[in-house]
């Protein structure tokens, strides 16, 4: 998802402002360390379970790095692509709810109209139990 966001920003930036001035390449080739992968997996609960996934990540980082080629001195960064839109204010009326049955159908397990989740948070030890994967 964020790759798409990056894509949009890049397009907006390239839309004919100043030319591409080359900046010194600050990061070298975006090598992703095994430690970083572990950290990312823990944060996002996304499984970087293969070489291919890491390679894709590195390519995405390299792609985004091309942003640095754009000179943005003195340019106010955008907050979002919606920043010029009007934020709609809704009146404080109750118009939704009362659909417990429908919502509970989405849940794998249900106990008396409660959603059932595993205890506490996702146990880190469970993640460690997966087969070790050769990091760079």
């Amino acid at each position: 998802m964020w790759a798409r966001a990056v894509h949009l920003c890049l397009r907006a930036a390239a839309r004919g402002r100043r030319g591409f001035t080359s900046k010194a390449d600050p990061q070298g080739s975006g090598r992703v360390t095994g430690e970083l992968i572990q950290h990312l997996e823990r944060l996002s609960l996304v499984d970087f379970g293969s070489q291919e996934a890491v390679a894709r990540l590195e390519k995405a980082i390299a792609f985004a790095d091309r942003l640095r080629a754009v000179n943005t001195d003195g340019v106010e960064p955008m907050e979002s692509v919606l920043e010029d839109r009007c934020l709609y204010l809704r009146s404080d009326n109750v118009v939704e709810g009362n659909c417990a049955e429908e919502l509970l159908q989405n849940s794998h397990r249900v106990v008396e109209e409660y959603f059932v989740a595993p205890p506490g948070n996702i146990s880190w030890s469970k993640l460690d139990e997966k087969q070790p994967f050769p990091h760079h």
Partner: protein
Amino acid sequence: MAAPMLRWCCPGRRFAFTRVGCGSCHRRGPPTGSTSNGKRGQSTVAQQPHITAQKPRKGEREWAAVVGLEIHAQIASNSKLFSGSQVHFAAPPNSLVSFFDASLPGTLPVLNRRCVEAAVMTGLALDCHINRKSLFDRKHYFYADLPAGYQITQQRLPIAVNGSLAYSVSVGRKPSQMVTRTVRVKQIQLEQDSGKSLHDDLRSQTLIDLNRAGIGLLEVVLEPDMSCGEEAATAVRELQLILQALGTSQANMAEGQLRVDANISVHRPGEPLGVRTEVKNLNSARFLARAIDYEIQRQINELENGGEILNETRSFDYKLGCTVPMRDKEGKQDYRFMPEPNLPPLLLYDSGSLPSGADPQQVIDIDRLRERLPELPRVTRERLVRQYGMLPEHSCALLNEVGLLEFFQSVIKETRAEPKKVTSWVLNTFLGFLKQQNLAVSESPVTPSALAELLDLLDRKAISSSAAKQVFEELWRNEGKTPAQIVAEKKLELLQDLEALEQLCRSTLEAHPHVVMDLKRGNPRAINKLIGLVRKATLGRADPTAIKEVLERQLSS
């Protein structure tokens, strides 16, 4: 209970909780009210009152504690912050949940106008600068009661910043020795509440109810300008009163509408601030001060014994009366803040900048909200003192009980009695009865009209004050009788017949010549005996002062 808790003290304060082995708390060093530069009663913003150890220990030096607070108040609105499902305390699980609250794909947040107004009003009441533009962000973390995996909050640019909250603490033994302190309000932000989890350890599962998920919260961040549990508790109480007066939150801690997290550290005065811990789960007004003081003492003990303080999150265990580390959070949380892509910036206006021809439903005018702000508690208390000549602690007491001020004002309106009398009756007798039976003002069997009528009778001297107390007790029994009826039934009217009183006095004097002689010989207490005898004879219906006057007149003739 934990080890000795009072080896330091917040100047001039009696602690409510049990003390182990220590006598009453005394102050050491300069009283905080008058700081070294002699300014009394001024707000002390950055000044930390010194906290001295009560018993001299090795190399006895002082410790100073620093307390900051993050307060979450549920906004009193009909519907949630970003969706149209209902805000209500007790309801069948998951019945007040919309598709957005359940984070079903394809749903989008739609901001509730009322919540924005509540935030602006609270910001204005706390003297904050209202940001004309504020932004929404996503704060990511994984927990079953947060279906989206992120909370929408305002991290980069909150709606209000840089305000202050004033509160009064007593600095002496007497309740009248009060001093005003201020704590800076760092910011106020709008954010979503999470759902509720019920842990079922037996079956190793957690039950999730999303009724609370998405309710609007005001997070009020108070800078670490407070130095002990009492100051923190008082500041929270004042904030509670302000929110209730504004109507922006009912701020009822018991119902989870007001939750407090404290950031606490200790250091030696003059040295840099110590490592702080965060204490969560402070959801009871009663235990707030106690928990904070416990943590301060724990940190002092730890450091004095050569240990060190970990920057950790702790929880207050109500049963044990101490703070315990929370389940390990696996290192520092990385919330991966990012702008909320589905919400444009929130723009607020004032009368000068209102866009012409705009739909009034779609614009928020800060000036109009400022005009409509109700009277704040601080102003109300000052007004009561001015208007009715009552003491500050009385005005505090009137505001401290839900509904008491309205009751008081209703009585004042209907009675001819002096305000001081009304104040005394409401705060002593009426409140006393309520507290004895643990009733709220709304549950009182005595109405303001009834009390007003009673006070009128007293004012007219139709009954004595002891008779009035009897009538009040009768009224409390709520048998539907008016004060006048009770007075008639129990024959409590003051003897109006002066002739009859004179008769009774004369006959009493005649019947007790030895007491009269005693009096004539100069025993001043003899007169009281005579008064008592006459009162008995009148079945308590004569006013003692009147009796005294008649007797003295008769004796001197």
